[in-house]
Structures are given as C-alpha cells and as structure tokens.
C-alpha cells in the first residue's frame, strides 16, 4: 500500500510535476479543439460538395473518406511527421496532430453527414420543389437541419474517440499531457506524474462522455 502511495500518489513529486503537466494539458486542449473544428468543418463541407453530384469530385471525396476512415490514426500521424518531409512538406508536431486527426474526423463526419442527408425520405426534396424551392435552398433550409440532428450522436461519439487520440502526439514528440508527464517521470524517477496526467484526461473527457450519453438518450426519445 505504501508502495502504491509512494509511486502513484507521491504528492511532493506531483507538486513538482504539476506546472509541466498542466502546460501539456493546455496543449492537449488546444489540439483537441483544432481537431474538432478542422474535422467537423471539413467533413460538413465535403458532404455538401458531394451533393453537387459531380462524378469526379465525388470520386476524389470517396477515396479520401475511405483512406482516412480505414488507416490507424498512428499510421497517419507517423506518415505525416516522418514520411512527408521527404517530399519537402514539414509540419510542426502540433500541426501534424491537428491535421492528421482532423483528417480522420473529417472523413467520418463527411461519411455520416452524407449518410444522414441520404437517409431522409426523397419525398422531402420533391415537396420542396413543388413549393418552388430551388435545390440549394431545399438542401440548406429543409434537409440539412434534419440531417445534422440525425448525425449528431454518431459524430459526437466519433469526435470524442478521435480527440482521445491526441495522446498519440507523443509519437511525434508533441509535448501534450502524456508526453510532458512521461518526461517528468523520467527526470524524477517516479510514475506519479502519470497519475496526474491520467487525472487531467479524466477531467477533460468525463464531461464529454456524459454529454454524449445525454445526447444519445435524448435522440433515442425523440426518434423513438
């Protein structure tokens, strides 16, 4: 028991680690927000582009979606950070994670928004046309609000799962929560900083997980 306290909850070590790990936590929050903004923004834009039904554009979007849905996130990050420089494309660790995970989230979001748009009955388009609405107006005023509602629970879950991947930033030497905790752990020869990091992750993600539960319950009720 003493050993557990000494190694995992060593307050003296934690106090010394706190400033570094907290700085790391701020980086985690910034990357997570960037990933969500890039991912959902790009995903929605791609789904809307797909509605224009240009075969070439749709082909390119499909390929993008399939590649980023299928590859493991870590493979994508490693490729961006260690592979692309051979092509003269260099990203900072922060940008590599934001762009890499953003691309993954955008692929899932594009697919889900697109599926939601298509899941709505075709009669809605026809009714809007009969009322004299243009296709674009129908898309934005009638279809999209319903599609976004339909897609929300799936996309929230994805967004949470993918932002948890920001911890993968250690692989590209991003000094986020886990990375900074690991370096302090190495210096102080005590794993308590990891406990601190774990605490910060829980602080950030528990509210999100609970929020997603609430959204799911609400959707389950309204769509019955």
């Amino acid at each position, binding site marked *: 028991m003493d050993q557990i306290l000494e190694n995992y909850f060593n307050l003296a070590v934690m106090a010394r680690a706190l400033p570094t790990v907290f700085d790391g936590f701020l980086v985690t929050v910034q990357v997570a927000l960037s990933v969500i903004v890039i991912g959902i923004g790009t995903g929605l834009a791609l789904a809307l582009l797909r509605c224009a039904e240009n075969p070439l554009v749709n082909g390119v979007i499909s390929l993008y979606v399939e590649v980023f849905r299928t590859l493991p996130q870590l493979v994508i990050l490693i490729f961006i950070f260690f592979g692309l420089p051979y092509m003269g494309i260099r990203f900072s660790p922060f940008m590599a994670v934001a762009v890499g995970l953003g691309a993954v989230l955008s692929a899932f979001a594009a697919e889900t928004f697109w599926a939601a748009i298509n*899941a709505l009955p075709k009669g809605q388009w026809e009714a809007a046309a009969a009322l004299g609405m243009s296709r674009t107006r129908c898309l934005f005023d009638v279809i999209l609000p319903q599609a976004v509602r*339909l897609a929300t629970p799936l996309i929230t879950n994805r967004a949470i799962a993918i932002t948890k991947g920001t911890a993968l930033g250690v692989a590209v030497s991003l000094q986020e929560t886990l990375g900074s905790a690991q370096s302090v752990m190495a210096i102080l020869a005590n794993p308590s900083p990891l406990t601190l990091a774990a605490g910060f992750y829980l602080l950030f993600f528990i509210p999100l997980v609970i929020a997603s539960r609430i959204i799911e319950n609400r959707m389950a009720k309204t769509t019955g």
Partner: protein
Amino acid sequence: MELFLQNFANIDSLVKIWPLLAQGLSLTLLLALVTLPLGLLAGLAVAVTYSFGNGFSRRLIIIMIDLLRSFPALVLLVLIYYSLPFFGISLPGFAAVVLALVINNTGYYGEIFRAGIESIPRSQHEAAAALGFGRGRAMVYLILPQAVRRVVAPLASNSLELVKMTSLASLVALPELLRSARVAQEQTYNPTPLTAAAVIFFVLLWPFSRWVSQMEKKALKERA
C-alpha cells in the same frame, strides 16, 4: 514524379525490407486475434452483470464504463508498461498491449452490449419466466441472441477500431507492422516502408471498414 516514386515507392528498398514487414504483419494479426475475443468476452460479462444487478451495482457499472471510455488507450498502456516496473513487475510488451487494449475495450464493448440487452422489452423476460426459464437460461437463449443482433453494427465498428489500435504497440517497442516499418525506414533513409505499411493496413482493413459503413448507413436510415 520520378523523385516521388523513388522516395515513396522504391522497389529496391521494398524488396530489402519485405521480410521485416511480413514479420510485423504477423505480429499485428496475432495481437488482433488475441485481443478481440478477450475484449468481447470482458464487455459481455460487464453487460450481463449489469442486467442482473440491482440499482446500486448498476450505477457502479455505468460509472466504471464511463471512466474506461474517458481514458485514452495509450495512457493506459503507458501506465501499465512504464509504471509497473517501479513495483518490480515488468510485463513483456505483448502482454502489456493486450492488457491495455482489453481493459480499454471492456468499456466500449460493455456499453454496446448493455444498450443491446436494455433494448429488449421487459415483457420478453416475463414471458421467459412464465415458460419456466431461469434468469440465466433466459439470458443465454432468449435475450442475448436478440440483443447481439441489434448491436452488430456498433460491435463491428468497435472491433475495427480495436484492430487499428494494435498499432499503439509500436510505442512500447513491440515490432508490429508500424514499428517494423519505422525501423526499416530508419535503416533505408527512405519512407517507402511507411507507404508499404499504410498500403498493407488499408488492404487488410478496407473490406471490413466498407462493411461497417454499409451497416451504419442502414441503421441511420431506420432512424430517419
């Protein structure tokens, strides 16, 4: 273009590093084969315990599931792999990865199975009791077969994520596919091994990822 091919799809370097990649691939497959059934079983056990539990134990299980879902898998892995040695317990990399992924996915699978079991109406339990089924037999023969059928899509989706997550093993120096590719890249000063690993992952996982996406689309359509 020539420079691009020489860098990212260099045949010579591919031939040289192929044995390394093949070895990595077999370790990735082994990891997936060991982790998948263990994770599924652990999740199922949690969900069944939930459905037999009283108000208090149910709340406890929900809290446990949410804690597990809030915790990035990599943080768990680092905690297991780098902090247990401070207690004189050092798990080999393979065991650490399996343990971390199983614990992490117990939360996800547990929640999926739980939602499936809860979606079966109470009257089914009552009908089973009226026919003289014990609670355990009713669960195995009546409830679970229906419950599992309802959650095939999220189960498949999570299983895909689990297989992708085996690439985390590369961060604890386990030579699975991604790690082998990194080692090969450092030996050949050429990113071709990374491209090759990405292509192998894609070819391996894409059919599965297509299938998951089809099922998710069907589920969305039913809700719309």
